[in-house]
């Protein structure tokens, strides 16, 4: 396997969730539930008293609920179905982790979006001769939003900021690539 193939795989793994937390929680809950059901089945088979509920009563109750649904049962069923729907969506959604990567060159690289945001903020502050608290950057999806706060009636050079940020982004080889969006607003720095 060539390095690039390995690198692509690693970048993919590092930028998308493995869903291991969710899988572990579900597996543990189900393990406890089935351990209990198994125990009840054995107890019923040897004729001992059940821990909580004998299998026959349990199945009878569930089937009874299905046979004559009343408000509460329907509500519970709806909740169960909705949780199931959420799980299906989570299983199929890409689950991006707020990171970007590149599989080219000597080493593969995975960058936290926050690193990119802080780098862009510094670039913008330097280009526009602004204080660092006048610039706030958020990075998400394919967009980097740079928000410049103008103070004391001084207008910021939005074009210079835009050029500098675009140049910085142009130097990146990380995917998914980003497009900058610079906005200015007047006001005080609140933070």
């Amino acid at each position, binding site marked *: *396997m060539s390095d690039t193939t390995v*690198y692509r795989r*690693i*970048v993919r793994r590092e930028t998308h969730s*493995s*869903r*291991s937390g*969710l*899988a*572990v929680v579900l*597996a*543990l809950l*189900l*393990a406890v539930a*089935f*351990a209990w059901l*198994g125990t009840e*089945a*054995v107890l019923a088979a040897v*004729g001992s008293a059940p821990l909580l509920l*004998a*299998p026959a009563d349990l*199945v009878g109750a569930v*089937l*009874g609920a*299905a*046979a*004559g*649904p009343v408000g509460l*049962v*329907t509500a*519970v*069923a*709806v*909740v*169960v*179905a909705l*949780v*199931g*729907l959420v*799980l299906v969506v989570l*299983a199929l959604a890409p689950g991006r982790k707020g990171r970007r990567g590149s599989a080219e060159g*000597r*080493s593969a*690289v*995975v*960058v*936290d979006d*926050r*690193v990119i*945001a*802080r*780098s862009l*903020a*510094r670039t913008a*502050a330097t280009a526009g001769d602004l204080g*660092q608290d006048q610039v706030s950057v958020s990075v998400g999806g394919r967009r980097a939003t740079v928000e410049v706060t103008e103070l004391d009636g001084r207008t910021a050079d939005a074009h210079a900021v835009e050029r500098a940020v675009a140049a910085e982004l142009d*130097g*990146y*080889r990380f995917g998914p690539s980003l497009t900058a969006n610079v906005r200015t607003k007047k006001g005080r720095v609140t933070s």
Partner: protein
Amino acid sequence: MNDTNRAVNRLFVLVVGLVMLLGGGVVAVGALLPDVQTAVSDGAEQATGPTTDALSGGLPWVLWVSALAALVLVVLFVALVVRQGGGRTGTLLRVPSKGSGSGVGGDVVVETKTAAAAIEAALKEDDAFVSSSVGTWRVKGTTVLRVAVDVRKGVSPRDAHGRIDQVVAAWDEVLGEKVPVVVQLDGGLRSQLSNGVGRTE
């Protein structure tokens, strides 16, 4: 970075989700579709008698089979939990000895610690990084060296990657072989709390 089997995780979540969706849906659908509701009710009503009889001790083997099935499922779920993560190794490189006839025998093994010490020391010199940690992982049969760093606030990720590549190039020279390397540029708490670059405040 680890060797978790992601496909299995997602498949598992998908199956559990579908079972809940269908199970909940069948019961809940009665409120909306009376025809379907009647069919479900009749089926459940007819099934109640035989199944409760069987589970009450009428057919003991049913209970034993259920218990066995439950046990198998519990083992599978626990296996899924235990299978998460992993893949970390302590060996970066193993060069097998060539031929048994030569006077000098034995494999050459390069431990991860050797690489970690060299690379971390070099990165410590660099002001662009707050901290670094180096480890090796086996991912799908390939040993990969991972260099994870907390980047100082405001440092360009391109610049940071370039600097690490220089350190990696120096390490390649030492090792005499190029192992796959993945660089991770983190922006967590340590990065956030670090002093920024390029500006004195």
